[in-house]
Structures are given as structure tokens and as C-alpha cells.
């Protein structure tokens, strides 16, 4: 019945046709797909840079690229991945698509601003892309002066401008989400009936709104310094390069939570749906998101332990950094407790959720290593740090992003991805990821510094393992790309709620109508109340 109806029924994808109907759309669902295409492009671009890095590191000598080119490669890998993939990835695609639907709204509060923020990301991305093609930038994604202001002979300002513009995209998305959650909830959708996905996006938005302007003004000051040598970051003129590091990390540490909080929101949905149980300790998980957002602003100094910061400041920042572990652990324990006596199914999204929980835990625990003063002095600027944050960003954010993409794919497209291939690629990604990054912990502990392409011969075995893992990982990322596109035409069509999930987004047809709901839902139940969806499961 439903399947037959899908063919003729009008939904957001066939409501209008033509390139203009996409480029001028105000529909949050279409804008989410525009974002999806954009961030996927940058993901594969950043991945290409990473591939070149890993191939270079196969041998101890610098034989594939020059030192200068290598500097550009890791810089552009970082810029593309951080600013144009990880930060917009989950909020601007899955968040954009599902946050309004989960609260029972027809759209975000400001649809035109939503479209504007996509254009800002594209303009910023194109500028940075232009800088990369025209000659690249070699400062590292952190743009530290005095190298970036006085010495680097590369495209610092154009790249910075691209990051600056994409920052406004991030700010506007955050602003839109906050207002939407406050003002657009359906009747009966109280704060404590919101799915945890919405709570974590709300917390993310707060960081985007408070943190991003600071990196914006920092880039402005950096550009002024580079252009006019006004002295703000120049010790020779009375300025202080460390001030840049403070301002930079005041944003860029919370930015880690911009990347991982939405991922946690996705995992909460996945764990609940595939254990068929309400998330254990809902309120704790919700407030843990808020706590992470708040604490995230108080820990930036742990990036400056060896940058002339006073020992006392270092101790305070170290202590505060440990505090972040509490809400993070609350989440991990609560997801695990949700599984207890759950009716667990091992569908692909759940595999990614399991992957996330394990890898995020390793990333988080090694975060404690680098948050402690003594240990950090030993591993500062080594591959240990590189491995640590890749466990959070790749093992955490990308795992959850892919999990979420599989979970909501049938809702977004009306078609199911091929489960067998999906399970295989989830496995390949998990294995490839660990083979890539686990050896880097060892490398870093043994003293391999980051950002070097020539290294002592005794590190070669571990580097070869890491490169082998990266090849496996690359295969794992290409498979979903292929079958997602394949499924658009050949995937099995699905009904409204293939997973038997509880969110409002599953109570409308797949793909949803242009205005999301045929009539505004009235909510009388709490989040994750499975008694409301009994007997609706189609796939499991």
C-alpha cells in the first residue's frame, strides 16, 4: 500500500524541479542535501591530502614531496577537514534536515538565513579551494604567528578569509537552531520530551554562537598583522604571539565540541532505536550536553602548556580539562546502560554507534593523558596528540555521521541502502581506522613529532602499518559513497518508519512532504516511548 503510494505522492524531492528550485530553495530538507553534497566534496578533498601524507610517510626519507609541499599538504588536510567538513558535517546536514522535524516544525525559524549560510559555506570553501589550487598554505591549520604573519610565503590571507566567511555560516546555523528550538516546537513538545539529538544540537549551537565570532575577529587581527605589521602578535613591537594562541584556542577547543556533540546526539538516537529502549537517564544525558558546552569554554589553556603559560594557569586548565571527562563519561555509561536488557538489533547504524562508543572512549581517555601537565610535556606535538584527536574526530564524529546517514537515509530518500554492503563497509572502516591511528599512539609516545615528513628509520614499521590502515579506511569510505548513490535508484522503497523508531520524523511519510507533516503533530508522550510505535517495524 505505502510502497505504491510513494510513487505518485508529492514529497519534498518532487514538489518542484529544476536547478533554480534547488539553488533558491528555502526548504530545510533541500538545504540539508545541498550541504551534504558540499561537505562530501570537502571530505574527499581532505581525504586526498591525507592520502598523499600517508604515502609520503611510507619511507623515512622525504622522497615523494618536498618539505614545503608536505607542510602544505597537512595544512590543507586540516583546513578542509576541520572547517569545511567536520564543523558543518552533522549539524548542517542531519541537524538541518531533522531538527525541525523532530520538534514537529514545518521549517527552521529563518529559512532564508539557512540558505544564506549554505552560500556562505560555499563561498568560503571556494576561496580556500582557490588558495589551495593557486599555491596552497603551509602554516598548519592553526595559523600560528609569527610564522603566519611574517615568514610564510603562501596563501594565508585568502585561506583565512575563506575560514572567516565559513565561520558566519556556522554562526547563522547555530542562531537558527537556537531560535527554532525555543520558538518552533509543536504543541506538547516540552523541553524534556525533545529527542537527545535536539538537546545536543542546542548545546552545539550555543558554542557556535559564542565561539565562532572569536575566531572571526582573531583572523581579522591576523590578516591586519600580516598586511600592516601592526604589532599585535609581534614580540618585536611589544605584541605577544601567545595572545593569538589564546584567542585561537578559545574558539578551536570548543570547536572540538561543535564536532562531537552532534555526533553524541546521533548516537543517543541510534542506541535507543536499536536497543528498543528509552535512553537511560535522559535528563543526565541532556544536561551532559549542556555541561560539555559550558566546560568546553574553560579549558583552552591546555593547548598552551608549553607556550610560556604560567604553571599555575596550566594547573587550573589541566584541572578544568579533567572536568570535561565527567559529562562525557556520563554519556558513555548511559548509552551502555541503555543496552542492558534491550532488544538489540545489529543493523548498520547500530554498528557505527558501537564503533563510536568504543573509539570515542579511547579518544576521551587519551584526552586525559594530554590534559595532565607532566604527560603532555612528553607528548606535546607528537603523533600521540594526532592519534588522540583523530580518535575523537574520525573515530567519533565520522562514525556517528555515517551511522546517522545510514539511519536516516530511508527517511531522506524513501529508499533503503543495501544492508550487506553497509555492514561490510562499517567493518572495513572500523578495522582500517584502528590500523591507521592506533600505531600513531605508539609512534608519538616513542617521540615521533607531528608535521615532519623525514623521520628516523626505526619508526618505519609503525608508519607502514598506519599507511596500510589508511588504505583500508579509504576503501571503507568509498563503498558507502557508491551504494548510497546506487540506492537512490535501486534501493528498496520503505514506509514511514522502517526502524520502528519513536521520533516525530518517523511519523510522516518517507520522503517527507514539503512541509514535513500533513498536519501539525500534537505531542502527548515523552521521547523514546516505544509503546507508541508497537508493531510498526518493517526491517530489523
Amino acid at each position, binding site marked *: 500500500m505505502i510502497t505504491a503510494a510513494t510513487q505518485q505522492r508529492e514529497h519534498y524531492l518532487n514538489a518542484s524541479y529544476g536547478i533554480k528550485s534547488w539553488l533558491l530553495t528555502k526548504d530545510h530538507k533541500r538545504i540539508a542535501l545541498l550541504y551534504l553534497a558540499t561537505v562530501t566534496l570537502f571530505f574527499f578533498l581532505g581525504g586526498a591530502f591525507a592520502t598523499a601524507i600517508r604515502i609520503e610517510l611510507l619511507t623515512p626519507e622525504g622522497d615523494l614531496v618536498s618539505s614545503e609541499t608536505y607542510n602544505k599538504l597537512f595544512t590543507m588536510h586540516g583546513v578542509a577537514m576541520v572547517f569545511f567538513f567536520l564543523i558543518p558535517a552533522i549539524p548542517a546536514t542531519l541537524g538541518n534536515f531533522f531538527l525541525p522535524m523532530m520538534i514537529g*516544525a*514545518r*521549517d*527552521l*525559524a*529563518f*529559512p532564508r538565513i539557512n540558505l544564506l549560510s549554505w552560500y556562505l559555506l560555499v563561498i568560503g570553501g571556494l576561496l580556500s579551494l582557490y588558495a589551495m589550487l593557486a599555491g596552497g598554505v603551509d602554516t598548519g591549520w592553526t595559523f600560528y604567528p609569527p610564522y603566519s604573519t611574517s615568514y610564510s610565503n603562501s596563501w594565508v590571507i585568502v585561506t583565512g578569509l575563506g575560514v572567516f566567511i565559513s565561520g558566519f555560516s556556522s*554562526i547563522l546555523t547555530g*542562531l*537558527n537552531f*537556537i*531560535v*527554532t528550538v*525555543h*520558538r*518552533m516546537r509543536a504543541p506538547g513538545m516540552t523541553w524534556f520530551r525533545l529527542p537527545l539529538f535536539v538537546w545536543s544540537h542546542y548545546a552545539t549551537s550555543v558554542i557556535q*554562537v*559564542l*565561539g*565562532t*565570532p*572569536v575566531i*572571526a*575577529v*582573531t583572523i*581579522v*587581527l591576523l590578516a*591586519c598583522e600580516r598586511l*600592516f*605589521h*601592526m*604589532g*599585535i602578535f609581534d614580540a*618585536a*613591537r*611589544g*605584541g*605577544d604571539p601567545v*595572545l593569538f594562541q589564546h*584567542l585561537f584556542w578559545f574558539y578551536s577547543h570548543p570547536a572540538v565540541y561543535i564536532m562531537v556533540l552532534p555526533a553524541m546526539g546521533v548516537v543517543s538516537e541510534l542506541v535507543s532505536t536499536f536497543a528498543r529502549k528509552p535512553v537511560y537517564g535522559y535528563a543526565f544525558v541532556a544536561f551532559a550536553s549542556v555541561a560539555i558546552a559550558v566546560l568546553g569554554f574553560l579549558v583552552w589553556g591546555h593547548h598552551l602548556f608549553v607556550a610560556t603559560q604560567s604553571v599555575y594557569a596550566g594547573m587550573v586548565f589541566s584541572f578544568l580539562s579533567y572536568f570535561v571527562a565527567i559529562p562525557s563519561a556520563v554519556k558513555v555509561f548511559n548509552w551502555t546502560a541503555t543496552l542492558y536488557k534491550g532488544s538489540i538489533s545489529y543493523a548498520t547504524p547500530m554498528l557505527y554507534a558501537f564503533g563510536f562508543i568504543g573509539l570515542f572512549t579511547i579518544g576521551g581517555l587519551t584526552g586525559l593523558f594530554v590534559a595532565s601537565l607532566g604527560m603532555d610535556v612528553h607528548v606535546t606535538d607528537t603523533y600521540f596528540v594526532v592519534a588522540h584527536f583523530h580518535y575523537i574526530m574520525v573515530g567519533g564524529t565520522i562514525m556517528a555521521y555515517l551511522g546517522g546517514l545510514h539511519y536516516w537515509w530511508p527517511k531522506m530518500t524513501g529508499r533503503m541502502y543495501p544492508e550487506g554492503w553497509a555492514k561490510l563497509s562499517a567493518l572495513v572502516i572500523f578495522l582500517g581506522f584502528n590500523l591507521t591511528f592506533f600505531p600513531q599512539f605508539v609512534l608519538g609516545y616513542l617521540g615521533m613529532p607531528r608535521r615532519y615528513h623525514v623521520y628516523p628509520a626505526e619508526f618505519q614499521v609503525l608508519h607502514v602499518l598506519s599507511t596500510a590502515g589508511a588504505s583500508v579506511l579509504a576503501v571503507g569510505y568509498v563503498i558507502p559513497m557508491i551504494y548510497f548513490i546506487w540506492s537512490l535508484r535501486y534501493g528498496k522503497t520503505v514506509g514511514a518508519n522502517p526502524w520502528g523508531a519513536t521520533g516525530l520524523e518517523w511519523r510522516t511519510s518517507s520522503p517527507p512532504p514539503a*512541509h514535513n507533516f500533513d498536519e*501539525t503533530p500534537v505531542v502527548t508522550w515523552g521521547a523514546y516511548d516505544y509503546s507508541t510505535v508497537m508493531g510498526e517495524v518493517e526491517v530489523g
Partner: protein
Amino acid sequence: MASEAHAESLALREQFDTAEQQKDASTLGMWIFLITEIMFFGGMFLAYTVYRSKYPYVFAVASSSLNVYIGAANTVVLLCSSLTMVLAVRAAALGKRSGIVLFLVLTLLLGGVFLGVKAYEWNEKFQEHHIPGPSFSFEGLAPDQQGYAQLFFSLYFAMTGLHALHMVVGVGILSTLIYQTRKGKFSAEYMTPVDISGLYWHFVDIIWIYLFPLLYLIDRHLGK
């Protein structure tokens, strides 16, 4: 009455259920935007605080070269523009279109006067070689302190420049509002754009209320 109800239904965007919900959303959105602006200016205020406390004497000397009377007069101009902006919002709430236009034009003129005076002050600094760069020089300070004085003027130009940029954006917003009012877009029932533009204008004023004492007033007697 009927035409006003018509105007209201036209102004209600499809994602909202009621005009009140729409107004609440727009107002909240503007407040959040202003918070981002505070953080944006905050980076510069932080840099100012750091270097002011590091080089208090040189900053006092450099600060005393600014013309406090012109700065004070410009502060009064800006405060008056806030008053006319409030009156414009009031006129909008009462649905008096001619009042909206009158007070918005006055606000626009006062904003223009502020920017003109600011341009005059910057020009003076140009002629005194107080522009950061190779030709920078500040009389009465030892060579090793020239860099610190240059820091002061770097911050002065960055902060007043960013503020002036916000004024220019404000002038653009006011011009749009005047045009829209004359087209009959606003009524007592729908005046949100006037209202939230007022919030923006006051915010830009408040930034100046902080900039003026920080840049012109603190410890200027030390420099004399």
C-alpha cells in the same frame, strides 16, 4: 482595518503559526546575533586589556593625543541618534508612518554626522603619522616605546574601524527601513523589522559608550 489585517497575513511567513510567534522568533534571533557581536568585539577588547595593562604609561601618552572634545561631542551625537531611534520604534508601535520616516531620517543623519566626524579624526591621525606602518612616529616617546604607541593606535584603528563598519551597515539598514516604511510595509501590528533594527542600532551605540572611555579618557592626565 481590513487592509491592515491583509498586510499582516502577507507578512506572516509560512513556517510560523501566528504573528506573535514570528515576532518572538525574530526578536530572539536579533538578541542572539547581538551576543555573537559582543564575542566578536570581545577579542579586540581582550587584546586592548592585555596591552593596556602591559604598557599603561605609553597607552596613556598615546591616548592623550586623541581629541577628547571631538570624541565627547561625537558621543552626544550618537546618544541623540539612539533617542531618535527609540522615537521611531515608538511611532511604529503607534502605527504613525510619517513619524517613523521622520525619526529614521533623523537617526540616519546623526549616524552620518558621527561617521563624518570620525573620518575627520582619522584624517588628523594620518597627518600626525599615527597610522601604524613604516612611517609611524610618535613625538615625545623613546625609540623603544614607539612600538607600544603603535600598538595603541593599531587597536584604536581596529576597534573604531570595526565600530564604524557596523555604523555603515546600520545606515544601510535605516535606509532600507525608510524605503519600506514609505512603501507602507509596516503597521502597528507588524513592525518587527523596525523594532529589531532598533536593537542593533542601540547595540552599536553601546559599543561606542565603551570605546570612548577606553580609548580617550583613561589616565589621559598622565600623558599631558
